[in-house]
């Protein structure tokens, strides 16, 4: 259907972004496909081998899944930060991803977690790292007729933790001005692997390998944190807009990267 529609075709999951764009007259869909009643897109499966979250699973439903919240507290928190309780009842990770806003809350956390998107079309199915989906503000690498069926999170080794922090001027209801997601695994008290991702500081969420390198091998001491913050700030290519300045985003990206790393470290059992 999506493939054959000549006009503007959209997938409707939670609708919390799509309906706003329709209301404001930014888009006039010729076709809307509601995926909420497709069973494969509506469920969460969680096992030792990994976690699969259907594209139509709402933020609230994800938040209520205790096992996923234990394994991936950062991813779940990030998803639960999307909007109010009203929005949580409807919004989805995949919708958040495909809306392709550089400030999407769940995206840095997903990328930090090494999440993959299961992309389906009439001709088949492929698995793509989340960071390859969004190519720019409002743009994705999905081809016409392709939709994301689910997000897959890898198996979680022991001694791992993740965290997501965003800065907003209020306590709720805002779009992130800057955000940071960190996921890491410890070995004998030291950080063995890490992924650090920033949001709202570039056209897409950015994975910052230099920031990860700054803390790998460390016990997250002051020096490592300082280097991490510097690497985060260095990776920023933000814009000045109504939500923040270049200067502000660059500075606070480092602060949030540091704070998110500390939380993730603690969650992984680091001292």
């Amino acid at each position, binding site marked *: 259907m999506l493939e054959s529609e000549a006009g503007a075709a959209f997938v409707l999951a939670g609708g919390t972004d799509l309906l706003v764009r329709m209301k404001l007259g930014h888009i006039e869909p010729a076709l809307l496909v509601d995926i909420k009643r497709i069973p494969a897109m509506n469920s969460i499966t969680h096992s030792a081998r990994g976690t699969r979250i259907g594209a139509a699973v709402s933020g609230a439903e994800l938040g209520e899944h205790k096992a996923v919240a234990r394994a991936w507290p950062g991813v779940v928190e990030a998803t639960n930060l999307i909007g109010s309780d009203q929005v949580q009842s409807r919004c989805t990770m995949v919708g958040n991803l495909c809306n392709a806003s550089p400030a999407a809350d769940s995206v840095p956390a997903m990328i930090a977690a090494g999440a993959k998107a299961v992309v389906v079309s009439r001709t088949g199915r492929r698995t793509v790292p989340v960071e390859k989906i969004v190519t720019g503000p409002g743009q994705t690498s999905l081809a016409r007729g392709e939709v994301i069926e689910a997000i897959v999170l890898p198996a979680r080794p022991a001694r791992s933790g993740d965290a997501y922090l965003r*800065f907003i*001027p209020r306590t709720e*209801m805002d779009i992130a001005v800057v955000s940071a997601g960190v996921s890491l695994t410890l070995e004998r008290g030291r950080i063995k692997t890490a992924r650090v991702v920033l949001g709202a500081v570039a056209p897409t969420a950015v994975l910052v390998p230099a920031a990860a390198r700054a803390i790998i091998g460390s016990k997250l001491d002051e020096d490592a944190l300082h280097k991490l913050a510097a690497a985060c700030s260095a990776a920023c290519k933000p814009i000045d807009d*109504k939500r923040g300045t270049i*200067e*502000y985003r660059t500075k*606070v990206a480092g602060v949030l990267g540091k704070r998110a790393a500390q939380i993730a470290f603690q969650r992984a059992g680091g001292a």
Partner: protein
Amino acid sequence: MANDPSYTKQKLKVIGSRVRRPDGVDKVTGRAKYGADHNAPGQLVGLFLRSPHAHARIKKISTARAEKLSGVKAIITSEDLPDLTKGDTAARDILENCMARGRALYDGHAVAAVAAVDEQTARKALKLIKVTYELLPHVTDVDEALKPDAPVIHDYLYTNGVEPRPTKPSNLYNVAEFGHGDVDAGFAQADVVVEKSYKTEQVHQGYIEPHACVGSVNPDGTGELWVTTQGHFTYRSVCANLLGMDIAKLKVTSSEIGGGFGGKTHVWIEPVVLALSRKANRPVKAVMSREEVFRASGPASSTSIDVKIGAKKDGTITAAFAALRYQSGPFPGAIPGMPWAAIGAMTSFACYNLANVKTLGYDVVVNRPKVAAYRAPSAPMIAFAVESTMDMVAKELGIEPLDLRIKNAAREGTRACYGPVYGPIGIGATLQAVKNHPHMRARLKKNQGRGMACGFWFNFGGQTCADLNIATDGSVTLTVGTIDVGGSRASLSLIAAEELGIPYKQVKAHIGDTGSLGHNDTTEGSRGTFSSGMAIVFAARQAIEVLRERAAIMWEIPIEDIIWKDGHAKARGSKYSRLKPLSLADIAAQSPSTGGPIAGHNESVPDNAGVSFASHICDVEVDPETGGTRIIRYTVIQDAGKAIHPTYVEGQMQGGAAQGIGWALNEEYIYGDDGRLQNPGFLDYRIPVCSDLPFIDTQILEIPNPNHPYGVRGVGETSIVPPLAAIGNAISNAVGVRMDHTPMSPPRILKALEQLHAS
């Protein structure tokens, strides 16, 4: 006695009790009807086409294709709205603001309107209207608009209030001066002089209910308008005048109002909706979108202010000066002789007893929406500047900021900075209450700071008209012409019950439409409970006269022998000991045979609503790494006069404080270089949400207004005045930076912190 407004010091029985509001059930069940909740048979949907440009000549509007669309019933441009204002410049500006005439003056300015059978059709029609614009240079910043090379918005505006009259038009349309004494001499006496410049960005009232109305004009020239408004009588006369209708032939009904705060004191879409209805010969309903509310209703001014205060070592202020530059959108302020900066200038140093004071108000036009009143209009911005500077003076002198204020506080006999001499006022009492408040002694943690600030507002009375009708069972109907934004039906019912000596539950208050009462001024200036309350007192006293007359007829004794006490007619003297007192219900039951319905009326112009003062205390915590600020604790202390319904008085104090907090921290209109508003929605125009705020403690001081029988003062507005400065002072005390620009948003605070650390 009957119409004497003097304070009576009488012991009050029901006033001051926290009764349930009569419209409560309607409002918790969804039954209450607001602006958008009314529908008329056969109504059309009205939509507006608005300019995307800040300033542009409208070369051509072609509506032909839209008119041909099936379902489109009327299209209006300025050509359908001839100028009938006969030299009344304020009315002409309203007309031009409702629909652009030759030029679009701001992003969002209406250029055409459509009435169609449904929203989809109306939307399609808007897209088919083709407007040819020629872009003109624009200016949105108040300081930029005053520069010599700024684009001059109107070639007909010459600065008023300066001698000699300027030879060239400019964006500065008015200069006003207030004050007394000799400020130069005063500054010469000072040991310390502090000067500082400030900016405050534009904010919106942010009422949750968008403007909405249903208008219907008949071919015979009569019409009806259902509308959310703070002043249905004013809407009636403005709409009738603009459209050439007889005022009495237009009936305006005020719906329940979903917040106004000054923003619903002026017409925006209503005259156009009536014009659409007249053209289509069908009722038309129009509801603004939230985006339209931000772009095209009436926010408050953005400002640029200089303040200079001089003081002696002992803390005595020797001189105070302020220059205020306020923008009012593309048109002069709503009241020709009293534009926005002038009002701000009048309130500037009203809290203080000053020998030498001078204020200058510069009013400026820019390419932004036409400014409207917002709760104590113009006062919060100048209070931010003055009260911040007061803290700086205190710091220079090494005096506690509170003590500096106490030392210089205005009192009875002080000449106010705006001219007159004060009667009994409450600023000193609020400052003493601050001093004694436990909040002032609470411990603060790292990165936390405490600030306090004062505020002033005038309060008004205005033309008022009210009816009180007694049914045959003794229940009482009040009909008032001021609207109920925050529980005034309850307070007015309490007043009637008090005066008549009957239980609160026996009274039911209604808001009358324009057909049921004489003119009532708009419900602004904190006047609702004050002035309608006064009219109800007088109406009740008139009704009591009638009740005594009727008792005299029933008993067949002279009226002079009858007194009204505790809700009963009582015969005075031992010769009448056999006469059992007659209750209001007893007399009402006999009314058909004793002369007909029993009622009281009042038409009056209550004045002297009593000036009002408040002092606020605020604790903040600042995250020094992000500049994020949280309000940890907040206390409002206000002289409210007698609180008729203390719970709703507290509500006014808390609500005003919350709006001030939003203004201080996050709310602002953000314009791009293209002159377009970038954040016309609640997502990026950030009003405080529930999790942003703590409980807001209140302390009501009841200093009676000598000019009201119960001592009532206006209470609604003053509470928005102090928060900006209280928060600025608290931030300064928390992390050492003096903020001079609102909102004190995280990027601004972080930048200030970095500058502090760099120096």
